[in-house]
């Protein structure tokens, strides 16, 4: 049971990450591969604030979102000068830069040693206190955040703003001549996506209670991208499905009975093969509304 709850918590965290990136890639058509940078910023904000300053978890979530918002605004300004493949490449670069900062700013992040001993969230209302220490309680908390992120995202994509985002994805020049300053829309959605990813980071840090830079590499960004491509671009439920699939897949493969010596590698291979097959036969993903 604990094992299932553990998987469900990971699923909720990755579903948040998937939704946050889907807003940027699926709706606005910006092929960003830097989501783990903002995920990491959220995680480090919570880790540093909780261990070093005794700040409440929920306040650390908000502060983490603010830092991710500021950083993503700056990165977004540079990215808005690029399109298509170049956009993806430059976003790669930013992921690597942020990762290097996690790794090398040792006074702040303790570098490769990581930050241990991050506490679980403490809910305080007046004199009433509840430490969310059991995994079941943490699952409820993570699910609430997932629901919140889902509904905010749904609100955004169903608004007129969301419709303009899709038009930018389809033909940026064509929507510009109607008086839309597209760079603003692109910046705003990039910042919103980054702030949502920071929430996932805070949850991750507090759940695992230890973080180090290895959780926020370029690979992680590609994994998040795989979630939304598999689930389907421009469909929020698709991101949830994609997260469910990619979190459960390795676990299911545990039971296939590969010899222990090669099990881990075989899981990677199967995972890769499934992605390739999907791209060949169903490029729009499971429930996607848009193909890259």
């Amino acid at each position: 049971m604990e094992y299932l709850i553990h998987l469900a918590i990971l699923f909720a965290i990755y579903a948040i990450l998937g939704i946050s990136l889907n807003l940027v890639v699926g709706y606005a058509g910006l092929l960003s591969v830097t989501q783990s940078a903002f995920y990491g910023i959220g995680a480090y904000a919570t880790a540093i604030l909780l261990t070093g300053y005794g700040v409440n978890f929920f306040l650390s979530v908000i502060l983490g979102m603010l830092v991710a918002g500021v950083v993503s605004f700056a990165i977004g300004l540079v990215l808005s000068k690029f399109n298509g493949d170049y956009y993806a490449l430059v976003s790669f670069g930013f992921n690597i830069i942020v990762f290097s900062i996690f790794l090398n700013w040792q006074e702040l992040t303790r570098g490769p040693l990581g930050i241990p001993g991050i506490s679980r969230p403490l809910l305080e209302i007046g004199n009433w206190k509840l430490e969310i220490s059991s995994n079941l309680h943490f699952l409820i908390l993570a699910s609430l955040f997932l629901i919140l992120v889902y509904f905010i995202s749904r609100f955004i994509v169903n608004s007129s703003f969301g419709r303009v985002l899709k038009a930018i994805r389809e033909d940026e020049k064509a929507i510009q001549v109607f008086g839309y300053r597209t760079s603003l829309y692109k910046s705003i959605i990039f910042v919103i996506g980054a702030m949502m990813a920071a929430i996932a980071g805070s949850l991750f840090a507090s759940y695992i209670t230890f973080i180090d830079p290895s959780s926020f590499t370029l690979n992680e960004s590609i994994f998040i991208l795989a979630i939304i491509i598999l689930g389907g671009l421009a469909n929020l439920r698709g991101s949830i499905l994609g997260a469910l699939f990619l979190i459960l897949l390795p676990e299911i493969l545990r039971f296939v009975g590969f010899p222990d010596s090669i099990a881990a590698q075989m899981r990677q291979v199967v995972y890769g093969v499934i992605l390739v097959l999907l791209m060949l036969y169903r490029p729009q993903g499971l429930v996607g509304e848009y193909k890259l």
Partner: protein
Amino acid sequence: MENQATKNYVKPIAVALRGLSKHFDGVRAVDDLSIAVEKGKITGIIGPNGSGKSTLINLLSGIIPSDGGVLIISGEKIKKIKPWEIAFYGITRIFQEVRLFNQMTVLDNILVVLTSRAPLKSLFEKHNQFYLNRAEELLKKTDLWEKRNELAINLSYGQRKLLEIARALANSMVDADPDIFLFDEPFAGLFPHMVKIVEEILRELKKHGKTVILIEHNMNLIRELCDYIFVMDSGKLLAEGEPDKVLAEKEVIEAYLGE
């Protein structure tokens, strides 16, 4: 006090260009061009392929920057303009190569331009009945209402063209309705009944005092619709005037036949 004489003889100008130029790798697509387009009229721009007509429309709509010259819209001089700024001067356009939002529905292609231009405001905006009615009216006019829930990419070529025209008409801003319509070959590839629809739309725009700039190859349509035409050749102005007169000129005929 307004001078009665000037009022009678000076025509109101919607758009004017002074010495506008655009070069592509040494080719002069538009070469030191100066024209003035009268307000509330349908003005045709004709000329052989590659004479710079579409480049001119692209310059007018800010899609490409000019290399030199001045654009004057409603009396205001503009040196450089960004694509999104052109809409605030009341200009809207259709593209020669149809540019729809392909993976959006027909209805959404219209509704998308019926929203606030302020991003944060549009976040909290839902479409009210007024906008939906307007979209319905435009889609019915262009015979696309039945197709409203289909993706734009699934329409036939002619329907795509009509949808783009409907989108240009829908572009009504909260503070500035478009006054100047740039139509780059709106009739190309249309079936006869569709041509009628577009003709009707152009006449209606004129009736409402709007200015239309029309690029077209079909001289019968030019004769029927245009009040005034400019003939371009190699990025320069070859002739201008009322269609019947200009189309009878020897150089104009030569420019076309010599193509």
